[in-house]
């Protein structure tokens, strides 16, 4: 340990490089992100009931609200079963809930010590935010598979295709990652945990109602239409709807992906800058 060295510590250019830096920054980032994803999968294995209870709310929307509104032809876009129309919206909403509460929960006492420690490791900071976002994606993925299974079992008119399902899962995870980063950004701004719940709701519900999750954009009044047009959740839902039931907004799935991906990139950058400051 106390290896003799003639030069002063500040001046010695030949001192050895710490072993943890033998991996390059990208390798460290990948390793850290994967470690966080694996930790999340392990947590789910220890407590799978959590995902089941969280899936109750989207199912209530689908089977109670969806069934009640089933015969409203303005909402169903012609012949489509409203529950099929609603399914992608409800899936996106459930994923957004996971993301927002996941982000908020990590500033709670439970993980504050963990995050302080992570910041004092050679892990790149982007990797901490990315790893947490990926952790939320793991939960979304499991929940989405569960919801898709229910849709199939209930015989709701979804157009099943391999690419549709893969695209759906990809879009949901991209959206979750983006909203998780947004939530971390929010957590950086609101340090009092008593406020989190209120502010979380304050952000989530307007995003949900001012999107195409529940109803088509064309039934909205002008002002709401404008808000919905700049709401990333709208694009997530449109993309999902296009891939799952074959109807949607523009019909350009790539555009929906592009908007959600751009939203994710901006949120990731912002959260990487702001979030670590909130922990220290």
């Amino acid at each position, binding site marked *: 340990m106390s290896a003799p060295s003639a030069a002063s510590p500040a001046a010695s250019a030949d001192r050895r490089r710490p*072993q943890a830096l033998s991996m390059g920054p990208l390798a460290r980032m990948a390793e850290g992100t994967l*470690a966080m994803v694996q930790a999340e999968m392990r947590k789910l294995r220890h407590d799978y009931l959590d995902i089941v209870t969280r899936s109750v709310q989207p199912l209530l929307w689908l089977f109670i609200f969806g069934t009640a509104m089933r015969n409203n032809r303005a909402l169903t876009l012609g012949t489509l079963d409203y529950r099929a129309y609603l399914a992608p919206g409800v899936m996106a909403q459930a994923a957004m809930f996971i993301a927002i509460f996941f982000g908020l929960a990590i500033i709670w006492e439970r993980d504050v010590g963990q995050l302080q420690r992570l910041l004092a490791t050679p892990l790149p900071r982007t990797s901490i935010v990315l790893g947490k976002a990926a952790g939320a994606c793991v939960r979304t993925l499991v929940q989405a598979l569960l919801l898709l299974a229910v849709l199939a079992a209930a015989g709701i008119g979804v157009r099943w295709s391999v690419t549709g399902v893969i695209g759906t899962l990809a879009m949901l995870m991209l959206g979750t990652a983006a909203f998780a980063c947004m939530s971390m950004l929010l957590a950086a701004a609101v340090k009092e945990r008593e406020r989190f719940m209120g502010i979380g709701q304050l952000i989530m519900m307007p995003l949900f109602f001012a999107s195409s999750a529940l109803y088509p954009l064309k039934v909205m009044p002008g002002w709401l239409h404008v808000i919905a047009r700049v709401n990333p959740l709208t694009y997530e839902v449109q993309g999902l709807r296009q891939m799952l039931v074959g109807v949607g907004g523009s019909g350009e799935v790539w555009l929906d992906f592009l908007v959600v991906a751009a939203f994710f990139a901006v949120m990731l950058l912002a959260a990487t800058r702001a979030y670590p400051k909130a922990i220290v």
Partner: protein
Amino acid sequence: MSASGADPALLVDGLVVRFGQLEAVGGVSFAVAPGEVFGLLGPNGAGKTTIIRVLTTLLAPTEGRALVAGFDVRKEGLAVRASIGYIPQAISVDGALTAYENLDFYGRVTGVPRRERRERMTEAIETMELAPMLDRLARTLSGGMLRRLEIASALLNRPEVLFLDEPTVGLDPTARGMVWERLQALGVQAGTTILVTTHVMEEAERHCDRLGVIDRGRLVEQGAPAELVARHGVETLEEVFTTVTGRPIGEQGNEDEGRLSDVRAQRRVARRLG
């Protein structure tokens, strides 16, 4: 052991940290030799945690210089982070994971090479006597076990310097003794340098090789516990503190410090460990 001789593992020189108008650390200097257990002793709000945050690169100093394992915290933050272990006062293991999974997680995020990970984990498990509790979820472990698990997880990257912020808060006397015993063994056996903060006089006196007494952001005295007691011609460290600061350690030094959120956080930790 003294700070002269080999290059110090820690060198703090004229460190100042200001938050706006508030000066949390006002010109602190000290050095810690490799393998030494150095204690920062002072009341809540004295600036101990702020110093640790600077040395672990979580906070940039306003003025002054600090070298950790020979690396500058300002210019070589990454190399510093790769050379240290850090256990904050708040619980840093994940209660929803088992003890083993927590170790595996920290092995990965601290950059332990894959081929060495298993061996390092076995080593840390032995050192901290964790074998019987590896498959238990961390939230079911007692306070003493949790702290040992945290220390084990901070040893995987074989840190040159280990930082611990109030590691015995909330622990019963037996668990406290066990934690200190392990820490001292680390210094002796592995040559790990340890910087630990505490506000418990008795622990500082019994377990630290040398101490720095911090009060209102300033280092008011430093030396080996016995040396300090002898220098001031008193019986206990508590009396040393009273002599150098003019008041007993129990009294809050700075009324702006020890904010509600800090106190609440400390109590939460104590409750979870207790």
